[in-house]
């Protein structure tokens, strides 16, 4: 299982000749290819990190702000129309992403958001909504409603009750969703490639890797360091948070 990772790491620090003659050995290690990958004009990795991180943060924030209050209303209201709304959102978890790319291009064009950061962030956020609302509503149902009533007695309105009393208690559910969304945004390839487009000059880590690697697939002094840089942050994050990440990603993969 770890051999590919070993090959990737070792060869990221070797020259082309060393990689070709001795792909599995340590050879003479050098930082030079890694440095060149960092300053690759085809794909600026540092800028890629920044852009991706911006998307990750924006999608996560927007997703929580939109999904959490909606889930609260759905979970707390006995009214029939909110149960129907829950089913309406639930239907979204069954829609495969591939089917959506083409019509979403149409919608974004109509709204004038095609090729823009706003359009991309909005669409990625919407993709997270069905499962977030499902997960949050389920979690809120376990939070005693007495708390809401106590807050109401103290004169808090519904918005304030939610954000100051209930929302802080939703930490575990929010953490799961944040992990899930972070990985799906970071690793997404199709949506940024098509919605942002190569023409925009905006590369996420994943589309940047595609731009940098696909043309130079046999120049291994480009391939290995670029791939290593693309996965390093996620891998470090994963090793430190493995328990939460494994449960979060598994929850996400069973959502369908």
């Amino acid at each position, binding site marked *: *299982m770890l051999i*590919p*990772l070993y*090959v990737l790491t070792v060869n990221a620090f070797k020259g082309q000749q060393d990689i*070709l*003659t001795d792909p*599995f050995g340590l050879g003479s290690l050098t930082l030079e290819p890694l440095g060149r990958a960092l300053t690759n004009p085809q794909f600026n990795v540092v800028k890629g990190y920044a852009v991706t991180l911006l998307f990750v943060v924006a999608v996560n924030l927007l997703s929580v702000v*939109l*999904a959490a209050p*909606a889930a609260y*209303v*759905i979970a707390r*209201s006995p009214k029939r129309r909110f149960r129907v709304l829950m089913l*309406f959102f639930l*239907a*979204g978890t*069954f*829609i495969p992403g*591939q*089917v*959506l790319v*083409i*019509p*979403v*291009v*149409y*919608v974004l064009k109509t709204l004038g958001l095609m090729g823009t950061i706003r359009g991309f962030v*909005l669409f990625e*956020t*919407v*993709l997270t*909504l*069905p499962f977030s609302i499902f997960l949050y509503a389920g979690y809120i149902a376990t939070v005693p409603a*007495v708390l809401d*009533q*106590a807050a*109401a*007695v103290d004169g808090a309105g*519904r918005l304030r009750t939610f954000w100051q009393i209930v929302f802080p208690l939703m930490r575990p559910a929010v953490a799961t969703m944040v992990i899930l969304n972070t*990985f799906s945004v970071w*690793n*997404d*390839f*199709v949506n940024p490639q*098509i919605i942002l487009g190569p023409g925009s000059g905006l590369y996420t880590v994943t589309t940047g*890797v595609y731009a940098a690697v*696909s043309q130079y*697939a046999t120049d291994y002094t480009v391939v290995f360091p670029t*791939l290593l840089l693309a*996965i390093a942050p996620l*891998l470090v994050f*994963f090793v430190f948070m*493995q328990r939460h*990440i*494994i*449960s979060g*990603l*598994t929850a996400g*993969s069973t959502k*369908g």
Partner: protein
Amino acid sequence: MTLTRVAPLVTTTVARQKPRRRDGWVTAIMVGPATVLYTVMLIVPVGLALYLSLTDWDGFSADPAFVGAANYLDLLDDPDLRRAAFVTLLVAAAGTAGLNLLGLGFALLVNGVSRANTFFRIVLFYPHVLSALVVGFLWSAILGTTGAVNNLVTSWGGEVLPFLSDPTWATITMIAVLVWAGFGVNVVLYLAGLQAVPHSLIEAARIDGATRRQVFRNVTLPALGPSVTVNIVLSLVTLLKTYDLVVSLTAGGPAGQTQTVAYLILWNSFHDARLGFGSAQSVLLMLVTGALAFVVTRLRRRGELAVHQ
């Protein structure tokens, strides 16, 4: 204590005092934005996909012409689609088998709480954290004609192995990489399933003199029934939309022989600017995926009922 006793009494008075209209506004503010965005960008597009599949949209024109069922008729005798459908079904079937055999096998191996098992779980799961695009590029650097393995083989005086340059080999390689990258999830799902198997049942069987294998076949496996269904459906649905890995591992080659349906959809849509035709293919893929998931669930349920009787 006092809180729980007093609260319901007071809230009713508070609710009565509060003007109803304001409450409606607050609810609208809380539910509205999510509902509107979700409808515009997820529900409307599904309907649009159906509509666009009946047009000749090229991705640019503002009002695509309505062409009726022409796209669907084109699908029927499209040799590319036929080949891609075969590759996709093969990948889905073989991949599902691989993911579940390895997933269940390793779950049984690393079941139980220990430091070593935690380590193994991390090692088995980590490829899932990486994007499929990176996984594909990495494996093509390892298995390509000038990749790591072939350099080793040729330096030992062997022939270059056509992992990615022969259609049959390339398909097998793709399935193997998909399984490598994905079975960690199945391990975790099966582990969760194993936690739910009642311990008393296993102990009872052991006391009655059942061997380990008998316990697995007659106690553990039947109790895992629902887990198996979830895992199979999940693997199928995921594999049927394989795209990123095709792009990076084989780019659909050699000679288009490893193109999957999802790859073909995006190729037709954005390379050939035939988004109407691509939409028709997406609709077809969605229907086939849904139908297969439904059939598998139904068959498995019948199997589970048979076990319980």
